[in-house]
């Protein structure tokens, strides 16, 4: 197992809902993504636990783009990964965020 | 310990337990009175017939001897692995046995289990593990699966499992591990007749295993998690 943490400074103060949002399932080639509101001094923090070792740089690149795309702050994102490809990771992140914003609006 | 020796040590005052196709049924005499005996021997692989036979006996005790304590003697290598058993719905037969034992408990029969040889997964789950309290002889073997088979199925290296089994009671076979997890109450040392008499009449209402696992630090989460869910 490898545990990674990423932090991004965001400016958009899109307040999410009170509820947590979870999408996906931890299985081979798949992952679960949980989004929670959290007072993080404007940060978006992403914690990744993955069974595939040695892909930190790819996670960094995927999450850089994700953070740039949505400009999020005060959001805790937690990921349990069963070895998903970047394509699946991006899809789940998008789905999670859509659910999150939908539920909060 | 073979079954004849076991029965004579448990019941020095005598017993009427018979062994038909490795199924044990009958009564034993203790100095707290008669106790019904149900069990298996010869490391029986429990198939549909055996499950049904045990259920027949359990229902017989419920009907004919209201409230009499029941001793469950466990020696099973698990469920029988066959297409025919699955075709007939063996899980339903085992569930039926479990339900009959639960009915006995509801009708004030004390259920005492003694693992005297082998206790493996399915056969144990629907029978001995239904007891109010579960005891074991020191030489008994309790497991879900042996480590090599486990390594094969989980695709984890055997060495890793062996290494971890030294520190975690959670998956390695063994009576001691089951005791730490609360799955077995105590190990019975000689004289067995005294051990049996000690527990007869100590009626327990609740499933104690989670609590025991918590106190013994082998299963730290089950008790608190269940409590939290229950409390809402």
């Amino acid at each position, binding site marked *: 197992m490898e545990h990674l943490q990423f932090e991004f400074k965001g400016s958009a103060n899109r307040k999410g809902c009170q509820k947590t949002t979870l999408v996906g399932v931890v299985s081979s*080639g798949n992952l679960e993504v949980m989004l929670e509101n959290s007072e993080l001094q404007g940060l978006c923090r992403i914690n990744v636990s993955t069974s595939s070792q040695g892909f930190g740089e790819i996670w960094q690149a995927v999450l850089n783009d994700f953070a740039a795309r949505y400009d999020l702050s005060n959001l805790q994102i937690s990921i349990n990964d069963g070895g998903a*490809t970047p394509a*699946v990771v991006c899809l789940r992140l998008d789905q999670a965020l859509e659910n999150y914003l939908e539920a909060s609006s | 310990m073979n079954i004849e020796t076991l029965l004579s040590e448990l019941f020095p005052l005598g017993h009427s337990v018979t062994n038909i196709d490795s199924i044990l049924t009958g009564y034993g005499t203790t100095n707290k009175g008669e106790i019904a005996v149900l069990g298996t021997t010869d490391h029986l692989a429990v198939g549909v017939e055996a499950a049904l036979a045990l259920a027949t006996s359990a229902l017989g005790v419920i009907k004919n001897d209201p409230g009499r304590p029941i001793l469950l003697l466990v020696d099973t290598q698990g469920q029988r692995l066959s297409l025919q058993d699955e075709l007939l719905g063996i899980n339903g037969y085992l569930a039926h046995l479990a339900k009959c034992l639960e009915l006995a408990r509801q009708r004030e029969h004390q259920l005492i289990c003694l693992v005297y040889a082998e206790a493996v997964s399915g056969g144990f789950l629907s029978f001995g593990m239904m007891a109010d309290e579960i005891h074991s002889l020191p030489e008994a073997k309790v497991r879900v699966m042996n480590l090599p088979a486990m390594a094969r199925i989980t695709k984890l290296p055997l060495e890793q499992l062996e290494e971890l089994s030294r520190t975690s009671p959670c998956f390695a076979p063994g009576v001691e591990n089951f005791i730490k997890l609360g799955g077995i109450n105590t190990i019975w040392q000689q004289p067995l007749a005294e051990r049996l008499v000690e527990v007869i009449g100590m009626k327990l209402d609740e499933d104690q295993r989670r609590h025991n696992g918590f106190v013994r630090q082998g299963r730290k989460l089950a008790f608190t998690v269940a409590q939290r869910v229950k409390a809402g």
Partner: protein
Amino acid sequence: MAIKKWDTQAENRRDRLQRAASICTDRIVPAERMTALLEELIEPGDRVCLEGNNQKQADFLARCLAQVDPQRIFDLHMVQSVIALPAHIELFERGIANKVDFSFSGPMGARMAQLVAAGKIQIGAIHTYLELFGRYFIDLTPKVSLIVAHSADRQGNLYTGPNTEDTPTIVEATAFKSGIVVAQVNQIVDQLPRVDIPADWVDYITEAPNPHTLEPLFTRDPAQLSEIQILMAMMVIKGIYAEYSVNRLNHGVGFNAAAIELLLPTYAESLGLKGKICRHWMLNPHPTLIPAIEAGFVESVYSPGSELGMEDYVSARPDVFFNGSDGSQRSNRAFSHAAGHYATDLFIGSTLQMDLQGNSSTVTLDRITGFGGAPNLGADARGRRHASSTWLKAGREAQSGLSAAPRGRKLVVQIMETYREHMQPTFVERLDAWEMMENTGMDLPPIMVYGDDISHVVTEEGIANLLLCRTEEERSEAIRGVAGYTPVGLGRSHRAVENLRDRGIIRRPEDLGVDHRLATRDLLAARSIRELVHWSGGLYQPPKRFRNW
């Protein structure tokens, strides 16, 4: 001056038949005498064709040949489409054969590589199907061909059933050049449903102890399709099939193609594309095409082979498929691949690796796998002269701004995720094919589809239209632009990619108007094999291994 003899081959043939008479005087040979018969019919050094493709296999005759006495029969030169059975390998292990010209060796690829390294197999060349078939008539004509059919009558006529495949080609090359044709059949009957091979082209027939092997190679279970594959299929339908009005096409086998087929009655229908795309196909009867056929998208399908379980369905749809007077399908690999090369406007396939030039390869190290038919299907047909609007539009894109005589272009599309399972990147700086070439001493790296034949690359990130690229650098940047988070993709220049996007060379799902939220399994016309059966009205009978009922 001695008189030159002009019929030595025919004379040799007569000698062989005479020798064989000591084993069997009848055209119908008992199975247990087949090995002995082959020992009389075949001579050392012969060129022998063993029929078998990725579907049907002359498995019994292959085993018989592998059992001949290597003291008597040796140094054979095998010519065959596919090396797939253990018996094929045994021929070389036992020294019965030492040379092979072939096309594909999927399951035996690893063992092949070992035998080549050990000097037990000399590879003449690895071909495409059409090339190999072509050489049967030029310089690789078989002396003896061991073929397979469904049944024979007592005169020796053969019925191949729906899986005609390579049989007519092999028999034609052999029987008309003084060769000998031996056929295994599942059964000998009084009356055949139809005649696929006439009796006087066949010398011997045997009833094999077991029905010949038949692999359901083109069945893809919709249950395994992922949302990513569905998203890519949506992009293909909207961004390529609709834009170019693709009506004559071929799909490579695989889940990506299956996803496209299953979106026709749903997504394509919702875009109003019925009757406007995907009307004429060169394709094995893919079970996943059933919903599109039933929904009225598909007008015709011509097949190189059939597919196990599809027989009744195909028979019941003679307006769509090519069926004989008996009602069952007739397939033909040679004609299909000629059609696929010259008469279709689009090929779409998947690959394991692609480099920055767009070259793609399915080579994995330590395996010799070969080509099959993909290079002919996945190549621009330079000799094509007839026009279609699709072909002309692609040609205009490829030639815009260049001063050349106008001509069309075939659309050759590669579709794949940027990473395969276990995080293997699809896009690489250098194909493993190069290392394979170096290790085995091949003349060329085994490239499946050359980059200059490819028109579009589709990944989950979007579509790269290589037709519009004008320089090597632009092509590379376009490929990087859809290569995702692979090392190749991470090497992109964001500015260059945005520039290509502005020019329509790279198009993201949002540029195409593809809503990624629709990319769920609910969009599939069938989500399971069971639903395919339902679409077929119970006519499709899937093999046991694909059922969950």
